[in-house]
């Protein structure tokens, strides 16, 4: 219970934010938000000792017991690592945002409500053991990301980026839901832990491969893998704290989490190994290559994030390989899993600090265009130091944390060449080669980011603001992260024991039963092995290419814009937009009569079709009440009124005749002793006649000239069809009674159980209360509809307010 409640803590806190913002405006709202992630971080830290020994915590809250849906918070090494990242980086980001967002100009209450909503969603994703609640939280992260990217909603680019991220990640989320449902069908349970226990049965099921691909689609869209990565660069329109938090440290890692969490289930499959490793590695290369085309600081970081996510993804894929190797514990195959988690931590730390520095540069100079920047080293020395630490860690240089995990990444990729299943013996050599090329580009863009901003010539005339160092509060968070980068390098094995190994044990339960069994020891120096020479080569080539960057960077522009994935996405959006428009215009003519024709035709087709399919035609003339004089007279009156409607020249006559039809029906109700119906029918007829008179008063006279013979003939056919259909239904309903009438039940229970005397009314308010509830809801909507139709008629000029 407690753990589940803690997931919802940020969301509950979010309820009070608008109030605090309105009432205590002189204090930056961020200060009220900060304690939430900080307290959660402290609480989760206290769980560390027991989890590091291989323990786990479970807590459950029933949600829809009848459908077996519950919130189950399950904390093991992997969940705890992510929870700490979410709350830890979250606290730093909130602290940073207090100085980044101006309390007078920004709508802080919106910002922090979305941010806290995201925190709950993300904690829910990483702690949910129940597939359905995992999905729920997953989509909630997409929604809060959408809201945060579109935070400056008056900008076109923000809205565009928000929509793009939403379209792509929600598409993936829906696919993932499909995968989850298939998994639940195969395993008969929604619990991930129980599913892991049933791997032998699940893996032989026909749906297995479908579930695998669908879940991977979810993970790849969220973690911005090729070809879905295109939303992430556009998501950079969000305020920088958001980019640092959602789009580099946490949300985009949800896909990695998903892959890690499902590795025990899917590792048996060769498709899994190939897809995850292959797509991951290709993404790593592809994004690092294109990062150098970017001119926007955050654009570079966005591509670098995509690339790093690909790197971790490929390592996770490689960690599944260990499942297929005999006695993997003694070999180098164990490195991949460890490296994946280790690099995940490193990346969150150094990328968080780099994003914050990009935000600081933007904040203090007024631009993020790297062509205008340069020479800030002397003006912003602290920012420069932090940026350098982050970038060097990203480039894989010692003495920073990134060096260690980059070495292990190379080891992981090299061991793949030794793997001799799934055609890895022939294609495996590609992995270290692509990894090397990707690393070279990573090296270049890291240097590009830091040195083109801070070194070189200062160009004050190009900057919108006079550059100066950021206030101390803004530097706190990135400086803290930069120190962490170095700390991780100094004590890698402590980090390994406390954070990485428990997570690895959760990813590879088939290898280890407790975190202590993970046989990896991080060392600074492995001797002159292949990895070492690869690293040296990467540094040398990277440095040379960085030196000559200005000469070859222009060649990126040679790539035609029309062939990019972005263009593909744009075209798809335009196509679906115009396509949907064209399709609706096809049948939405704007004439009421056309719509009536559609509706009545469908009624005829569906009802008569059902009749034919079920052979339900039945005419039984027994048990009929005798037809008396009254009925005949009323029928004649009704026919007379109907004929009057059809042939009347004036609309007024037609309406009154229509009222007459209604009154005769009411008379029928009287004869058949249904006073309730008669009463209602009488009143409603009166009111609707008045209404019609009111409405038609404004309309022009009827002109019969326009109606062609064909049109009238068509109407006649449909009118006849509806008449015949209804008659058949009435006859069949009377003749063939499949079930005993429910009226007996009503008669018996109306007084004893419902406490009423009038069955009709008790049906309305009690037996079928749901019907009435929704009917009055529909009535309400209809009323609003009429108001909008009549009162809010927009003239054409007013109609184009959308893009202001």
């Amino acid at each position: 219970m407690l753990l589940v409640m803690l997931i919802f803590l940020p969301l509950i806190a979010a309820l009070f934010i608008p109030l605090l913002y309105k009432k205590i405006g002189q204090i930056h709202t961020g200060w009220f938000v900060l304690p939430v992630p900080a307290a959660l971080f402290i609480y989760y830290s206290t769980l560390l000792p027991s989890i590091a020994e291989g323990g786990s915590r479970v807590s459950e809250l029933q949600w829809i017991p009848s459908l077996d849906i519950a919130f189950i918070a399950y904390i093991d090494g992997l969940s705890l690592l992510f929870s700490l990242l979410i709350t830890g980086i979250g606290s730093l980001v909130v602290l940073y945002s207090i100085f980044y967002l101006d309390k007078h100009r920004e709508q802080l209450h919106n910002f922090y409500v979305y941010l806290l909503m995201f925190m709950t969603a993300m904690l829910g994703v990483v702690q949910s053991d129940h597939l359905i609640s995992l999905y729920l939280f997953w989509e909630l992260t997409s929604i809060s990301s959408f809201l945060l990217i579109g935070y400056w909603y008056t900008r076109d680019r923000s809205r565009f980026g928000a929509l793009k991220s939403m379209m792509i990640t929600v598409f993936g989320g829906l696919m993932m839901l499909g995968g989850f449902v298939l998994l639940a069908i195969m395993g008969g349970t929604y619990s991930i832990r129980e599913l892991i226990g049933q791997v032998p049965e699940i893996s032989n099921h026909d749906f297995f491969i479908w579930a695998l691909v669908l879940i991977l689609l979810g993970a790849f869209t969220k973690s911005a893998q090729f070809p879905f990565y295109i939303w992430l660069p556009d998501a950079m329109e969000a305020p920088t704290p958001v980019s640092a938090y959602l789009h580099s440290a946490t949300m985009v890692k949800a896909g990695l989490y998903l892959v890690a969490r499902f590795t025990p289930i899917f590792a048996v499959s060769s498709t899994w190994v190939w897809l995850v490793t292959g797509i991951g590695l290709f993404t790593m290369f592809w994004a690092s290559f294109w990062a150098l085309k970017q001119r926007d600081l955050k654009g570079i970081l966005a591509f670098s994030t995509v690339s790093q996510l690909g790197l971790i993804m490929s390592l996770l894929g490689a960690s599944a390989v260990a499942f297929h190797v005999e006695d993997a514990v003694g070999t180098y195959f164990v490195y991949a899993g460890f490296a994946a988690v280790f690099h995940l931590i490193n990346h969150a730390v150094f990328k968080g600090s780099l994003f914050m520095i990009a935000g600081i540069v933007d904040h203090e100079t007024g631009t993020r265009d790297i062509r205008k920047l340069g020479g800030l080293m002397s003006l912003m020395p602290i920012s420069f130091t932090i940026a350098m630490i982050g970038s060097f860690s990203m480039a894989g240089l010692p003495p920073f944390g990134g060096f260690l995990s980059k070495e292990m990444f190379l080891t992981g990729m090299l061991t793949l060449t030794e793997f001799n299943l799934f055609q890895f013996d022939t294609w495996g050599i590609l992995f270290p080669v692509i990894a090397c090329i990707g690393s070279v580009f990573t090296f270049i863009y890291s240097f590009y980011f830091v040195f083109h901003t801070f070194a070189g010539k200062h160009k004050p005339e190009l900057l919108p603001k006079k550059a100066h160092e950021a206030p101390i509060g803004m530097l706190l968070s990135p400086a803290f992260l930069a120190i962490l980068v170095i700390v991780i390098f100094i004590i890698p094995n402590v980090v390994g024991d406390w954070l990485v190994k428990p997570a690895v044990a959760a990813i590879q339960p088939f290898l280890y039963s407790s975190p202590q069994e993970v046989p990896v020891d991080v060392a600074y120096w492995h001797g002159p092995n292949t990895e070492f020479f690869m690293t040296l080569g990467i540094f040398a080539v990277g440095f040379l290419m960085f030196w000559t960057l200005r000469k070859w960077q222009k060649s990126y522009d040679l790539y035609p814009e029309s062939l990019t994935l972005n263009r593909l996405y744009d075209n798809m959006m335009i196509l679906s937009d115009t396509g949907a428009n064209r399709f609706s215009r096809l049948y939405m003519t704007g004439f009421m009569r056309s719509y009536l024709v559609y509706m009545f035709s469908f009624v005829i087709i569906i009802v008569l079709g059902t009749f034919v399919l079920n052979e339900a035609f039945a005419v039984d003339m027994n048990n009929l009440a005798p037809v008396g004089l009254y009925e005949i007279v009323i029928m004649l009156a009704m026919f007379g009124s109907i004929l009057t409607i059809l042939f009347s020249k004036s609309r007024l006559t037609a309406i009154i005749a229509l009222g007459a039809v209604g009154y005769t029906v009411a008379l029928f109700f009287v004869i058949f002793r249904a006073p309730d119906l008669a009463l209602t029918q009488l009143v409603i007829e009166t009111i609707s006649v008045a209404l019609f008179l009111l409405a038609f008063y404004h309309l022009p006279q009827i002109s019969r000239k326009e109606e062609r013979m064909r049109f009238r003939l068509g109407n006649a056919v449909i009118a006849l069809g509806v008449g015949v259909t209804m008659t058949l239904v009435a006859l069949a309903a009377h003749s063939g009674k499949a079930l005993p009438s429910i009226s007996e039940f009503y008669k018996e229970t109306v007084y004893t159980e419902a406490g009423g005397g009038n069955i009709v009314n008790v049906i309305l308010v009690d037996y079928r209360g749901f019907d009435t509830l929704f009917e009055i809801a529909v009535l309400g909507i209809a009323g609003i509809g009429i108001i909008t139709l009549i009162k809010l008629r927009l003239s054409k000029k007013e109609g184009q307010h959308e893009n202001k």
Partner: protein
Amino acid sequence: MKTNDVMLQTATKVVTFIILLFAVHIFFAGHYTPGGGFVGGLLTTSAIVLLMLAFGIRTVKKILPINYVVMTSVGLLVAIATAAASIVFDVPFFTHAYDYFDLPLFGETSLHSALLFDIGVYLVVVGVTMTIIQTIGEDE
């Protein structure tokens, strides 16, 4: 709508109140004899429509300054709240409760939570029909 019909106006002054009284009667009678929130609402509407026919929409609006949109939403809220109230007592959504009470003047009376729901229906029906008639009637 320009009317200057003395007979209609004089008759309306009397008839409206009769209809309104009848509407109230029918509304409360609904649970045992013909009637209910729906008919009651419609009757009330018809009384107001009659007033409008006799005296014109503007005059009626002045006498009865009611925002019918608000009335509709209040009605919907009452209905939903009645249906949802059962959750508090840990019984399924929409479970009604009733009992018999000895009230002064009325004697033994059955009080039923369905009545609350019916009030919601009544308000929505009056609100929506009046909204529709008023907006269409005012539109020039």
